[in-house]
């Protein structure tokens, strides 16, 4: 049975169809889940895609955190279900305290839309388990508030516990410790600013995103067989 990934849509989300297409191109099923719903039944993994949830009012992710679906997302994550937040989805996961830290305005106040080179710094997560440690991936970023920030203690913990899963080779936005993506302690919740769904075909200039999303599908499949 093919695994099914739920792609959560908030008002203002705009990368949901890219995420669905990427999952389907890798042989998975994907279905959109509206933020006002509360059921995640039948889903093996979740993607919180990019965009501007609730207009990014107050702070990116600050209002999305209170959408009805988020309580179910928190339970899904607590039960070990794979959850990946991309760009705005990463901001939502931080605001929801599923991941530590916060995303701040980019250093230099520039909106950044460009390919970036990422280094896989830990394979202990649902998004990087199929990658090789030290592997370099070309994946685009597209954000204004992508500068990862946390206190010194959290930074040390993330680094010591292998929870910084992806880092920038040329830090474009001023993120602490060149952090591009982090995981929770169990490795089943991952947030990253770059867009792997936009690097899934040669037409897009890179297929390196398939390494990451392929890992997610494998993890989703594993959680099905455990169920």
């Amino acid at each position, binding site marked *: 049975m093919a695994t099914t990934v739920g792609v959560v849509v908030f008002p203002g989300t705009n990368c949901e169809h890219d995420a669905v297409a990427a999952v389907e191109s890798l042989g998975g099923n994907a279905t959109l889940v509206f933020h006002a719903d509360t059921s995640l039944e039948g889903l093996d993994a979740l993607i919180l895609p990019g965009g501007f949830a609730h207009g990014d009012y107050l702070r990116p992710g600050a209002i999305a955190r209170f959408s009805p679906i988020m309580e179910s997302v928190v339970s899904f994550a607590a039960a070990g279900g794979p959850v990946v937040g991309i760009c705005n989805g990463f901001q939502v996961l931080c*605001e929801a305290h599923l991941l530590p830290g*916060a995303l701040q*305005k980019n250093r230099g106040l520039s909106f950044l839309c460009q390919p970036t080179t990422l280094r896989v710094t830990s394979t202990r997560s649902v998004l990087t388990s199929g990658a090789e440690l030290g592997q370099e991936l070309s994946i685009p970023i597209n954000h204004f508030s992508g*500068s990862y*920030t946390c206190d010194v203690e959290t930074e040390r913990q993330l680094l010591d516990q292998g929870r910084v899963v992806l880092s920038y080779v040329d830090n474009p936005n001023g993120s602490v410790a060149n952090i591009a993506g982090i995981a929770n302690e169990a490795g089943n919740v991952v947030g990253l600013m770059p867009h792997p769904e936009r690097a899934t075909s040669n037409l897009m200039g890179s297929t390196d995103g398939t390494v990451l999303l392929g890992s997610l599908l494998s993890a989703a499949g594993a959680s099905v067989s455990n169920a």
Partner: protein
Amino acid sequence: MRFIARVEVRLRPGIADPEGATIERALPAMGFTSVASVSAGRSFRVELDADNLDGARAMATQLADRLLANPVIEESVIEVSPL
């Protein structure tokens, strides 16, 4: 009784403030050469009902902590007065 809470949200000390820094750099070009520093933040005006000033202050503190500010990077200063 109705109260008004003014909530100022600002970045914690040590957190980079690219917005404040950019404004700070723009001011000398306009002739404001004696500006020492600028930090950027947000301010909210919240009208709320409570039994007394302490209750209003407690409610304002809660809503600032839970929503208006992100405690990871921000802190808030709250002033409450009867409307």
